[in-house]
């Protein structure tokens, strides 16, 4: 009764084809309230927690009964507000589901700022795209909050952790719900801040707080692009709201300089936030944060904000062939580049981090070829399986850490060379992570197969369009995308084999302490595993649905997501159709969608089997004994192409040298000296003049008289 009342819209019956939102402001407000509540609890416990973190140790909170109340409440508040936000989003989603909503619903709460002709409303925009993003953010976010209850249980900063995590969700929702670029930018910066706070969560460790700073600074470079793009938009349209801008966008010249500049600057911002070349370097370092944070922020939601930005601005990007080509090219290069690095990493989270960078590259390839729905589709499936992979790795790290902690051994619990054979102790984690691995590798019928395949196919179709710009480029992008898919299958299989299969390298004594994650941790894994398995079925391409891949039409939907997002993407698609003509029907080397879907899944499956043979037959030593000296290309990959070293040498050090020059020479040497000299002169003059003050009455009387006489004399004479 209550539920139907909620769905029906509080009593009054809705006419068909009308979407009435249900308190969408509350969706934003709930995580914010959670942040405030947890923040207060964190402050109450602040001193003890900060000291414990600084000492690098753990706060021994003992059993549950002995935990202070500041540590039990966040377990309910943190996931609780997320559950509320998710249910509310779900209600709104269901309400939007059945209606034909062509124009977005915009709800304005107050005027945020108004100066001259410039006015920004604190308004949220509810449409199909923001709804999908809200579902991902609150849904996956809720699961990760639940997982965190188990993962962070013994951490001294427990309430602070949930405060930051809630705040992150709030800003992420602002990002996807904002009805204008400035509001989106607020969320954009807010999630950046939370990312910084959570990467450096264990601030007692220098390396970790440095990683936080690196993420923050690299993101600032991208943000400059976002800002400049906003300025250009405002200069042209006089507004920054989405609806009027996209309405008038087509008055701009197709492929003109202005639209190209706007899209390129937006893409710079997106490349910073979504870790694309050449600004991807912060994401692998961001793994310094707690693993659930890596899952939520650095895999499932925040890093996809760039993809959302491009999809949201689809009209602008469709008008700029150069901008779109840049997006696709950078995405493809990043996808391949990061995938190769992931081949040789030994840290389980580093592999996943580079995998994330690579998959983000895929999404950009998708939105770069005008397949905005495909990009968002991959964003969604990736949120499922990458969150699952990260949470699974979190469960593994949790178990490894516990084992080392119990036996007082100091070894890296994240190094895969120290693992092996974990499937015996952690069967649930093992199974769910295999599901995610098969999904990310793009093997039928897992979620990744449908989303990745659609992107690869769209590249081929776009490159084969009648008037496609740079057709050769798109052929290359297509080949790269296929190659990266094969590499993905390889490095993920390697990760699974090194972690869960083969002989145990953890050590005999330590192995006894290895155990499966508690229910609160494996339950989210199971739900995400189901989503990784079935999540792709919401958007089965029409061509595949009737073929073997759709089980001859047995899979439930045909391009549901594609149709769902149509109100958002149709304008871009009209522009595309008008300028490029009809999309191609065959891949660069012949063959249609169904054939290439088969080839790619067969290739991925083959690579998984080959990887099992290669990695399985190789003897792996644990990290302390591993003296393998890689040479040539392997060494290059292990060291991540020395990109960080290159940046350090040519950018960081240059800036540092300049900063040191300005500090030591200009500031200390010139400015400070000048000011000090000024001070000394003033002091000296004051000292000299003070000698006139003798303290003797006669002197004063005499000077007074002489002064009076002089004044008198002067006034008489003149």
């Amino acid at each position, binding site marked *: 009764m209550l539920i139907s009342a909620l769905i029906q819209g509080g009593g009054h019956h809705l006419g068909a084809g009308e979407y009435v939102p249900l308190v969408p402001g509350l969706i934003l407000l709930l995580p914010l309230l959670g942040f405030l509540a947890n923040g207060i609890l964190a402050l109450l416990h602040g001193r003890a927690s900060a000291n414990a973190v600084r000492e690098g140790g753990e706060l021994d909170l003992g059993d549950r009964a002995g935990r202070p109340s500041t540590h039990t409440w966040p377990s309910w508040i943190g996931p609780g507000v997320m559950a509320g936000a998710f249910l509310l989003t779900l209600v709104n989603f269901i309400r939007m589901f059945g209606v034909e909503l062509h124009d977005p619903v915009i709800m304005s709460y107050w005027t945020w700022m108004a100066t001259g002709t410039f006015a920004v409303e604190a308004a949220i925009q509810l449409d199909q795209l923001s709804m999908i993003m809200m579902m991902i953010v609150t849904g996956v976010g809720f699961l990760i909050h639940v997982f965190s209850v188990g993962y962070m249980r013994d951490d001294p900063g427990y309430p602070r952790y949930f405060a930051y995590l809630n705040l992150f969700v709030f800003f992420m929702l602002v990002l996807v719900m904002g009805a204008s670029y400035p509001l989106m930018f607020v969320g954009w910066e807010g999630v950046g801040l939370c990312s910084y706070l959570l990467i450096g969560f264990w601030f007692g460790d220098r390396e970790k707080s440095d990683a936080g700073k690196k993420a923050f600074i690299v993101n600032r470079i991208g943000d400059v692009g976002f800002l400049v793009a906003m300025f250009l938009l405002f200069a042209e349209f006089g507004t920054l709201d989405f609806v009027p801008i996209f309405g008038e966008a087509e008055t701009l010249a197709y492929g003109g300089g202005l639209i190209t500049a706007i899209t390129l600057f937006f893409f710079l911002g997106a490349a910073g936030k979504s870790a694309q070349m050449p600004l991807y370097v912060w994401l692998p370092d961001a793994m310094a944060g707690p693993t659930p944070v890596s899952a939520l922020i650095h895999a499932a939601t925040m890093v996809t904000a760039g993809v959302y930005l491009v999809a949201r601005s689809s009209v602008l990007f469709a008008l700029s062939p150069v901008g779109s080509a840049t997006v696709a090219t950078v995405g493809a290069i990043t996808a391949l580049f990061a995938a190769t690095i992931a081949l040789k990493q030994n840290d389980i989270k580093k592999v996943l981090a580079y995998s994330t960078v690579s998959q983000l590259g895929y999404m950009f390839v998708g939105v770069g070829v005008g397949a905005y729905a495909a990009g968002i589709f991959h964003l969604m499936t990736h949120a499922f399986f990458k969150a699952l992979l990260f949470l699974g790795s979190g469960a593994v790290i949790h178990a490894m850490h516990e084992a080392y902690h119990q036996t007082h051994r100091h070894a890296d619990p994240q190094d895969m060379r120290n693992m092996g054979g974990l499937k015996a102790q952690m069967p649930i984690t093992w199974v769910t992570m295999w599901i995610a691995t098969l999904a990310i590798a793009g093997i039928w019928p897992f979620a990744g197969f449908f989303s990745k395949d659609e992107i690869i196919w769209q590249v081929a179709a776009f490159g084969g369009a009648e008037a496609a710009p740079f057709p050769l480029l798109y052929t290359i992008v297509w080949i790269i995308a296929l190659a990266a898919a094969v590499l993905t299958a390889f490095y993920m299989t390697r990760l699974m084999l090194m972690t869960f299969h083969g002989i145990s390298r953890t050590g005999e004594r330590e192995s006894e302490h290895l155990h499966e994650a508690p229910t609160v941790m494996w339950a989210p894994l199971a739900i995400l595993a189901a989503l990784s398995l079935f999540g792709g079925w919401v958007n089965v391409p029409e061509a595949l649905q009737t073929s073997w891949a759709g089980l001859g039409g047995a899979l439930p939907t045909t391009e549901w997501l594609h149709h769902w997002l149509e109100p958002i993407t149709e304008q871009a698609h009209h522009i595309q159709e008008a300028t490029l003509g009809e999309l191609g029907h065959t891949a660069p080397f012949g063959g249609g969608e169904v054939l290439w879907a088969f080839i790619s899944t067969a290739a991925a499956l083959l690579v998984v089997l080959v990887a099992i043979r290669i990695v399985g037959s190789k003897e792996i030593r644990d990290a302390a004994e591993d003296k393998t000296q890689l040479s040539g290309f392997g060494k290059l990959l292990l060291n991540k192409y020395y990109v960080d070293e290159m940046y350090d040498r040519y950018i960081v050090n240059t800036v540092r040298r300049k900063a040191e020059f300005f500090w030591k020479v200009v500031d200390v040497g010139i400015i400070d000296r000048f000011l000090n000299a000024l001070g000394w002169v003033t002091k000296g003059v004051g000292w000299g003049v003070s000698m006139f*003050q003798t303290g003797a009455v*006669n002197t004063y009387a005499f000077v007074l008289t002489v002064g009076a006489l002089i004044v008198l004399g002067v006034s008489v004479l003149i």
Partner: protein
Amino acid sequence: MITDALLLSAILFVIGTFGVLVRRNAIIIFLAIELQLNAVNVAFVAFSNLYGIDGQVFVFFVMTVAAAEAAVGLAIIISIFRHYETVDVNNFNFLKW
């Protein structure tokens, strides 16, 4: 007539000023200041003959202020004398840098 009065006033003022400058005894300096004030009073009265009653009214103000000043000044001098047993202003130059 007015010249004589002004001349008297000027002589008295110069004597007063001279006294303030050269004497060391605080009480004598005080007396000299009173002399200066009264020199000014003479000038006021002389001018009031020409310009109306305002000058004489002002003299009353000066006398009132002089009386108040004498009371406070003498109190300070007595207090100084009690502390140092001298009223020679050459001994008092503590109020400096």
